[in-house]
């Protein structure tokens, strides 16, 4: 039973659950407001943006790459929605215009991702460089289009999407959980997901096994781009505005969350469930510190320290395990 759960969710889940419980225990002693519905409500509201972006980062990392353009892709996609809404009357625009804009945004995000995947696959350039150049380009494009300013003045239902809830569950959280489910199925049960892991471990051996690895890379980055677009739309609904610089601080946090979730930095290994746990831990840490009067910056620092601590513990655990095996 335990073994099967471990096999299905990944080996990191157990350790991360212990971390999660430890963090919760510490904070519930430190603050009597920690174990309250209001606190968990705020976690639920903050989780989705970072979460969806992390899912967008997860796929490229698993394939042995990285996508540094996730934030700029998200913002360019959100700009697409904003543009469609503005053309259709700004605050008076209807739901149809929003849906059209969202569809276009997904296409724009996918196209940006596809371009990165294609360049990576065909030229063999390192994905860090390709996506870094793409990030600079898209951010520049966004700055050019918006002249560095905010775009706002959306119909009321946009804010409702960002702040509303369904059966008491915040709407962004529903979107996020849906995305998690899709990624879980993609990585666990589909051909592309399977190829993602194999490409991440050894792309040449995968190619020798008859897999069209170029196509796989293009699809991986396209899907990452689409996920960015979803994040962009959610961010737009949350802030009720679009701005090129929105969420830039999230970029490296998404990588941090993946590593914390036990994703192999070289690719090939990592599970959605453990990344989800890592995200929850990060948000709980952040909200707990918040209750103690710290600001977001201190949380950021603590996240970094937490990642270092976890990596050091993993190292120590491995050493200890080897020693123990050596004795028997």
């Amino acid at each position, binding site marked *: 039973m335990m073994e099967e759960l471990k096999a299905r969710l990944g080996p990191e889940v157990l350790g991360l659950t212990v971390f999660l419980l430890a963090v919760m225990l510490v904070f519930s002693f430190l603050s009597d407001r920690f174990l309250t519905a209001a606190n968990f409500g705020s976690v639920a509201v903050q989780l989705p943006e970072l979460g969806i972006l992390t899912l967008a980062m997860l796929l490229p990392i698993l394939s042995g790459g990285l996508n540094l353009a996730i934030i700029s892709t998200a913002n360019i996609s959100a700009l697409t929605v904003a543009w469609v809404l503005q053309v259709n009357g700004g605050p008076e625009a209807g739901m149809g215009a929003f849906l059209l804009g969202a569809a276009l945004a997904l296409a724009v995000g996918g196209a940006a991702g596809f371009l990165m995947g294609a360049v990576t696959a065909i030229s063999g350039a390192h994905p860090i460089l390709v996506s870094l150049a793409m990030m600079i380009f898209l951010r520049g494009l966004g700055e050019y289009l918006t002249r560095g300013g905010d775009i706002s003045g959306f119909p009321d239902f946009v804010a409702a999407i960002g702040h509303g809830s369904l059966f008491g569950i915040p709407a962004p959280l529903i979107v996020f959980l849906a995305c998690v489910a899709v990624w879980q*199925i993609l990585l666990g049960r589909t*051909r592309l997901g399977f190829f993602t*892991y194999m490409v991440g*471990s050894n792309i040449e*051996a995968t*190619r020798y096994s*008859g897999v*069209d690895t170029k196509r796989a890379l293009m699809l991986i980055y396209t899907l990452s781009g689409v996920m960015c677009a979803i994040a962009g739309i959610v961010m737009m609904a949350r802030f009720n505005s679009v701005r090129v610089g929105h969420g830039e601080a999230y970029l490296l946090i998404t990588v941090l969350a993946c590593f914390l979730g036990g994703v192999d930095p070289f690719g090939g*290994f990592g599970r959605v469930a453990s990344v989800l746990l890592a995200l929850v831990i990060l948000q709980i840490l952040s909200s707990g510190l918040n209750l103690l009067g710290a600001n977001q910056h201190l949380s950021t620092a603590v996240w970094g320290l937490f990642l270092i601590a976890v990596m050091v513990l993993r190292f120590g655990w491995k050493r200890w395990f080897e020693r123990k095996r050596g004795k028997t």
Partner: protein
Amino acid sequence: MAEQAARGAVLAMRGVSKTFGGVKALNDVSFTVRPGEVHCLAGENGSGKSTVIKIATGVYTADPGADIEIAGQSVAAPTPGLARRLGIAVIWQDLALFPEMTVAENIGFEALLGARPKPVARKRMRETAARVLARLGVALDPDAPLRSLPIAKRQIVAIARALVGEARLIFMDEPTASLTQAETDHLLEIVRSLSASGVAVVFVSHRLAEVLEVSSAVTVLRDGRLVGVFPTEGMTQSKLTELMTGQTFDSAVAARDRSAAPPVLELKGLTREGEYADIELTIRKGEILGITGLIGAGRTELGHTLFGMTRPDRGEIRLDGKPVRFRSNGQAIRAGVSYVSEDRLSLGLIQPQSIADNLSLTVLDRLLTAGLISPARKSSLVDHWIRELAVKIGTPADAVATLSGGNQQRIVLAKWLATEPRLLVLDAPTVGVDVGARAGIFAIIRRLAEQGLAILLISDEAPEVYFNADRVLHMAGGRIIGHYDPRATSLAELEQAVYA
């Protein structure tokens, strides 16, 4: 007795053990090399040969209790720097060179070592490189980046590096693996002249003929333990194999006449410039066709074309009588062609991933239900093939890297057999597979042929092809230059043709 042998020895190791994560890679091994001696270190993969080299050169530290003497000096735990200063040099199996640096820097890197910064004397390094290369009788541009050289030339660079210092003892770990026969002969010359000048050489090679030709004594290891030290005089290949594996093997020619069976693969005038030319051959249903020849003969390149990874410039490939032109290996697989790569470690399998995933990678399409991979079908596929090929595994979730060479090769075979091929191209299927496990691999291959599979067996080891194929082609310089029927030819004749 052991005390006496150690006196005057250039290297004397006694009671050496080494444990990795609970596994004993070496167990109380002693190893002694005298000045000017050519000594062979023999054993199967994983018998501990490389570990002995790495301990003697300070890359690994032996478990406590070992006694190591280099040039009469007792060394508790050698470091790479100390071992080098005491006159030990190594030609590593993986060469251990720096592709981005120049030939001169690779050869003369020793001048750049040391913790204290010092200026780089490029001119002196170039001169050193030129001197050593002249001694080896090879002309190489000292300023060329190493990455621009083919693998055989890199091997020469690795040899040159070992000759730079005033070495007393040179370890050569599979130094001939990618050399042509002429280059190998030249290297063996150098080994003899080194020996004559008092430098000891420890020679590790899987080519037993070579070993027996050049060395005067052989130390045999098995499973990390010392089997014994033997003089090479009077030693035969089969006796050495027996010592290494602890088993006896008798080989018999397995060739059969399949000329009545319908052809599966026909090649007509197949040519790819710079790789192979005018290849004409036919493989029939149930036939094993062997191709042998030296490194660089164009065998692997031919295999790549059959598998759709490269395209021929001229000529025709017919599969079951119909001409085919593959644009990718995916098409070749769908048409029924499978290819077992010679490079199992980096191309044949995805080492860190699980046995189950490696096995299902080629046939993922068949495991889908409603577009999703069915775990049940996947595990039944894996169970089937593990049983069918009698692979020894822990659980299917273990990484392939945890398996022995022979069992890994069975997984490779399984992943290709699962695609139900009509033609199986085997490129050096026993590289890195222990002598003991090879028989098992060939038993599987012969059984597959009996079931009607057409098999192209590529190998640079003539005996392997001779004993297992129905017909043998000799390839050299990209062309087929000889046809042999094992039933009408002796092994000596074939070896004479291929290696001389």
